[in-house]
């Protein structure tokens, strides 16, 4: 088996939305909102889920839809880790 140790990484999905009061739910800026959703969708499609390690990658856009995306990415990682790791019998999350 080829081993590859994944470095912790942080993914900033949208710097302009991170840590601000702007919201995917109530934004009045249509262009900005479309841009955020597009970026979110792009990341969701493009990222290789198996490489993502829980806790090592932080997606920051805003609010509930982000959480959903984060969970999906995290679940992908857990699948990969569970199949590769010898000490994950309980499927820790």
């Amino acid at each position, binding site marked *: 088996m080829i081993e590859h140790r994944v470095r912790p990484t942080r993914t900033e999905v949208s710097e302009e939305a991170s840590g601000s009061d702007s919201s995917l739910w109530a934004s009045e800026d249509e262009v900005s909102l479309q841009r955020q959703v597009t970026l979110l969708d*792009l990341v969701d499609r493009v990222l290789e889920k198996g490489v993502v*390690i829980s806790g090592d990658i932080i997606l920051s856009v805003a609010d509930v839809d982000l959480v959903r995306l984060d969970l999906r990415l995290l679940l992908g990682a857990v699948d990969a880790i569970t199949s590769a*790791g010898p000490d994950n019998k309980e499927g820790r999350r």
Partner: protein
Amino acid sequence: MIQIVAVTAPRPIGGLETLEDTEGRVAIAYKHVDEQPDTTVRTITDHVACLTRMMEGGPLIPARFPTLVQDTGSLESWLDKHALELAEELAALDGCVEVGIRGIAKQQPDKPAAGSSGREFMAKKLESQRQAESAQLAVAHAVEHAHQILQDASVRSVHEPGSPSASFLVRKEDARSFQGKVGQVDTGRTVRIFCTGSWPPFSFVRTPFPRLEVVHA
């Protein structure tokens, strides 16, 4: 270390190296990297931009980012093993792009403000969570509804029940009219459906790419 970019028909691709299967049916486009690329907005969009340029020269099977292998030896064996199905997959994707939809709730749940007591605060917090769950459910229903309406206008589609998004494979020349159809879907007063793309057909890749085994750091 090698980063796989895509599988294509055998052809020269600027800036990338290619490796054909022994019968010359398909080729892998790849590049050498010193270490695992950082996952940033820039590296992700660069990857997609590269794929988009490659699609102008013909169909491709896009690799997600980053798809890494140790050396070309593992690529050769994988390519020879899967060349036939990859060629069929390329033919099925020829002339097509991926278009996405994503539902977003219009109203944000009330944020629990400090109450006169801890009990009151917890009650407000619970109500806020209920609103969020209700909104997510509404989004899932709206996307499900939109998917049912739009799937007939696509070549293929992918949607997981409960997901806030769906993906459609559409002919390149139909992408604009498909996006217009998305705008016509009635999703009620509480949910907006956004259309994204067009993208390389990430959601319609059937043959898993080889990759390094991941070890938890």
